[in-house]
């Protein structure tokens, strides 16, 4: 039978390295997805995933309770992503990459919204939403990504950012308000 996350974390903390390898398999896509949505390019997302697991491995003694492993790994990942975002912001404007990547990691913005009808319209809308995401402060942006895109609960996000749930609600409300404003304009144009 497949081990649960707390069981795997327990084994990992007791020195079972196979358990760590299994945790990498279970979390790698989630971390990549969050990192990609924050940084908009494959290479940076790849760096975030690698560094996150290396840091989790090296800082495993800091994990007090196996129940909070998800929050622990999310905190490591989001902190690294924010650091990278700050660094990149000083270097160049962040743009989403759709080219210059090996075939199997080609990312096409037009495929991100999988609605069969009105693909072009959705593509434009998503581009605007992604741009709006970039204008949000880091914590609001990450809150919206973690909650609305990745599906994490407000309690998990609060644990990740080490803040009260009310702050998560407030950040989410502000982020949605801003994104809805764009939606509103777009829908008005359409009418």
């Amino acid at each position: 039978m497949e081990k649960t996350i707390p069981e795997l974390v327990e084994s990992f903390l007791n020195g079972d390295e196979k358990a760590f390898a299994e945790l990498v398999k279970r979390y790698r896509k989630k971390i990549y997805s969050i990192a990609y949505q924050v940084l908009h390019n494959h290479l940076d997302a790849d760096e975030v995933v690698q560094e996150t697991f290396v840091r989790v491995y090296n800082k495993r003694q800091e994990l007090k309770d196996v129940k909070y492993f998800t929050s622990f790994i999310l905190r490591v990942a989001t902190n690294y992503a924010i650091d990278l975002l700050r660094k990149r912001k000083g270097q160049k404007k962040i743009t989403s990459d759709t080219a210059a990547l090996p075939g199997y990691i080609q990312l096409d913005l037009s495929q991100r919204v999988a609605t069969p009808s009105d693909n072009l319209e959705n593509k434009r809308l998503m581009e605007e939403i992604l741009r709006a995401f970039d204008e949000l402060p880091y914590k609001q942006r990450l809150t919206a990504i973690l909650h609305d895109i990745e599906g994490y609960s407000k309690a998990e996000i609060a644990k990740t950012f080490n803040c009260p749930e009310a702050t998560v609600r407030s950040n989410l409300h502000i982020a949605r308000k801003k994104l809805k404003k764009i939606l509103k304009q777009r829908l008005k144009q359409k009418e």
Partner: protein
Amino acid sequence: MTCRFALLLLDDYVDNELAPKEREALKKHLEDCSSCRQEWERTKYLKELLKQKLVNDPGEDYWKEMTNIILARTIETSSRESVTLSFTEKAAMQRGAFIRSLVSAGVSVIILVSAIILGTAQKKSDPTIYAGGNRLFAAASLKPPDKTVTTIITKKEQINQAQGMLLMGAPTFIGRFSTIFEFINSGE
């Protein structure tokens, strides 16, 4: 329910996190208020839109390669280096090495001091050696030793001293160097 309050509850309503009582109240408000209803529909639409898959999966080959890199940087590195030591473990190791070096330095000092004491003690107990003055220290002496004085030390005593020198090593050997000279001369 006022529109202001309804808008505050809207996020939790969309997330299905409202208490049944508030949920019913808001539902009723949305039926009556077109402006709040529009806002609710926008929130719902945005949530649905964001639920869409935003990132394409880079593919199994990529994940395999990425996992191998991570394991090489963590598990394999740590087993190559035996262990990834924490700060406290490193400190304990350094403390152990420091104590070991202190102990060995202490033991060396004790050996050296005992060798010098044992080496010179016999000189004090044997006034005949001192009686010869600088003549006993043949290595440094410019004059040949006084044979009349050396004869006071018996052959047995000299053998004992030589055995002591061998047992105590170099420091004792230096301290009792003159007795060798006397031992050799006594045979003449």
